[in-house]
């Protein structure tokens, strides 16, 4: 997106409520993911909350791959980061991924491509518990591309994901 468009988008977002639920705000289901999109000035941020149903409502991606943290081929189901960012209207900037133990790593939006990383909510067709890297885990299809077998990618494979902050380009 061109810089002037970013400015316009930020101005529009500034008028909206600060926190918005993706689906039914009154549901009892726990909120699994908080996505905060910062404006250019960094003051008027928009936060989007995702429950499991919200994530499942987005296009489902499913693939099988080996990982360095598990043994044997694993099957992951989730929503692609590309779909999520598209859902949120994010086209550039940086995703700051944060885990439950305050592990933080940055990931460029441009890396969120179809066939790339997903936010997995099912591991081997079962929901993931917090004791087993859940409930959300950023997973790359490591086997499909050697470029996904680097230390950098492994560092971005955040498990126990709870929050994503989207930093604008010029911050």
């Amino acid at each position, binding site marked *: 997106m061109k810089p002037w468009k970013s400015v316009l988008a930020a101005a529009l977002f500034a008028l909206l409520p600060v926190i918005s639920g993706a689906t039914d705000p009154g549901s009892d289901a726990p909120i699994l993911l908080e996505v905060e999109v910062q404006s250019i000035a960094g003051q008027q941020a928009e936060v989007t909350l995702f429950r499991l149903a919200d994530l499942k409502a987005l296009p489902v991606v499913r693939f099988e791959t080996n990982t360095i943290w598990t043994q044997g081929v694993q099957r992951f189901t989730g929503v692609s980061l590309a779909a999520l960012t598209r859902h949120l209207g994010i086209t550039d900037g940086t995703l700051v991924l944060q885990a439950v*133990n305050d592990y933080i790593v940055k990931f460029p939006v441009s890396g969120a491509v179809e066939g790339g990383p997903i936010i997995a909510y099912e591991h081997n067709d079962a929901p993931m518990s917090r004791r*087993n890297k859940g409930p959300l885990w950023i997973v790359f299809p490591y086997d499909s591309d050697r470029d996904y077998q680097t230390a950098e*990618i*492994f560092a971005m*494979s955040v498990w*126990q994901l709870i929050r994503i902050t989207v930093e604008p380009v010029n911050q």
Partner: protein
Amino acid sequence: MLQVRDKLAPFAPKLGVVAAVIVVVTLLVLTVSLARDVLCQIRDLSAANSDNAQWNLSQSEVEHLRLQSAVSQALQGGSLEPVRLHFDIFYNWVFTLHDSSLFSGLRESNHGVDGLGKIQDLLITFVPIVDGPDEQLRGHLSELEADLAVNGHEVRAMTLAGLVANALGADSKREAVAATLRRLGWVVVALFSALALTAWKIGRLYRHGRVLTAASNAAAARMQAMVTSSLDAILMVDVKGRIIAFNGAAESIFGFSRDEAIGKKLVDLIVPDHLRSGYLDAMTRYRSTGDTKGVERGRVRLEAKRKSGEIFPVELSITLSRSGKDAIFVSYLRDISDRIAAETELTRARDDALAGEHAKANLLTVMSHEMRTPLSGVLGSMDLLGATPLTKEQTGYLHAMRVSGEILLHHVNEVLDLSQLEAGVRLEPPQNFDLAELMSGLVDSQQATARAAGNTLDLRCRLDKTSIVRGRPRKIQQALLNLIGNALKFTRNGSVVVELDRQGNGDQVQILIRDTGAGIGADDLERIFEDFVTLDASYGRAREGTGLGLAITRRIVDALEGQIEVESKLGEGSLFRVSLPLPDAQTDLARQPRSEVGANSPKAILVVEDNDINRVLMTTTLQRMGHQVTAAAGGAEAVAAAAAGQFDLILMDISMPKVDGIEAYRRIRAQNLAEGVDIVALTAHVAADDHARILDTGFAEVATKPINRSELSDLISRHTSAGMAADPQPVTSDIG
């Protein structure tokens, strides 16, 4: 060796290039594959399926501490939620350590396995409690705290074990990378070396090529200089007959400029019309069969054509120069007009010289006839005049005349002798004679001459046993007379000694003529026997005479198959040594009856002579000798006379008008008019051909005019019947 190399030469570079290409390609492939290997390994290192294992390990320790902290705070009344959160986080870490391939090293070490097992046991034990109600969890908090405190050591130990294992794994990976890098390094070094070698080789080839080019240029320049400076025309012609090179000499010989000639057909330019078809045939044959015989024929003489159309003789050599598929005819061509002209000139000079010789011979023939005939008349008349009564004064004049006449005759005879000897007139037949008698007669005849010059003349004869030998006395006498006459001529108040002796028991007789006279200079010694030289040499011309004496003597000695030598010192005298083959003939002579009959025995003689003076002289002479003479003035008269009377001998002139001597002879013989009678030719002709022709006709002998009395007497003795043999009187010389 050189040939082999030459044959291999075209292939050697190709083999080398192929080998080099193979090596370089192999090295490149190796390099690429190793480089890929290295890249993979480097990526593995960077990607290093590690995900910061150290950080993970230490993080597990951190999470352990956080859990402990959360438990402590809960024991002091804090919330239980952090305990549950950090329990889950720690649990997650521990089981990740258990599952992840990153920590296989850790799991394989005893410490790691033990520690991990214990921690997992603890966590599994507490899972129901943590998941249970708050009260239950709170009740077990202190127990959890205690266990966690105990497990702190395990976590620490496990972390350390993991670090060690990872370090080891990293080391082996680094080793592998280092080994690969080393291999790559070697390959690169090899590749670099190969490239360097190739570059060096190419450089060498380049330098070699430059040297060859320079040499080739130099050779070409030299060749160009040779062609340019050649005195012979050099033309190069391609297989189609077109001129492709034409040097300066060719320009000057043919008259065409180089630009005019280049590219033209040779046949149109310089081949004369009459050689055109032959040239074209040879070229056609070469083109169709490759046969160069018609073209390469070594040095040949042909004719060529100048620009002016002049045809001139050339000497030509053509060589075919092959270079690959191309062939060039190289022609060297020399204008030999001058040489031919010189040869022609030389031939003409030789012909002129031969013609001169002929003229000389002709002159001699003419001289012999035209001079001797009148001389015969003069001398014969003087003989007759001497028989008439004369005053003392008249006798003195007559003597002077006779001496002069005989000297003149002698000179003429010398010239004629020389030409006769030169012409190879056949010699008298060999006969037996008394050599001692001949020598003593010869010496006696010269005594008067010797005394006149105050000289003594002695003969020393040392022939053993017998002095009868077989040989040609008249020629021997002539030769020795010349030598003795010369010795006396060049000696004053000295002595001349003639020595005669046989060499051992052989056939050779040596005659020495020794004088104490003027002698001959060393420079002249070699020359005195040469033909004609004495004619203008001081030796010959210093005194009276033709100076041909020694030349004639040498020719006589040569004809007799003898040798003549001379030793002399100027002012001290000369020694002439003559060796002649004269075999002992005692027995032969003994059988021959010696005639006691003198010349006085009268004979009937027919004289045939057309010259009136000579006929009268001859008739008178013979009559004075006591013979009965019938004279005939021509051939026809001779035949008639022969038919009319009987004769003992016929003397026949040859050159006569109408019926000549030869014809008359044939008629007499044909009619059997003078059976058993010798017919002797009497002629002024001295040429060998004439003598041979006359003898072939059948004449008994050829006598040359003028003929003196004693010769005539001998002649009559030889040819009249037995009892008329010659009186062996020594022949006296007509001159002193």
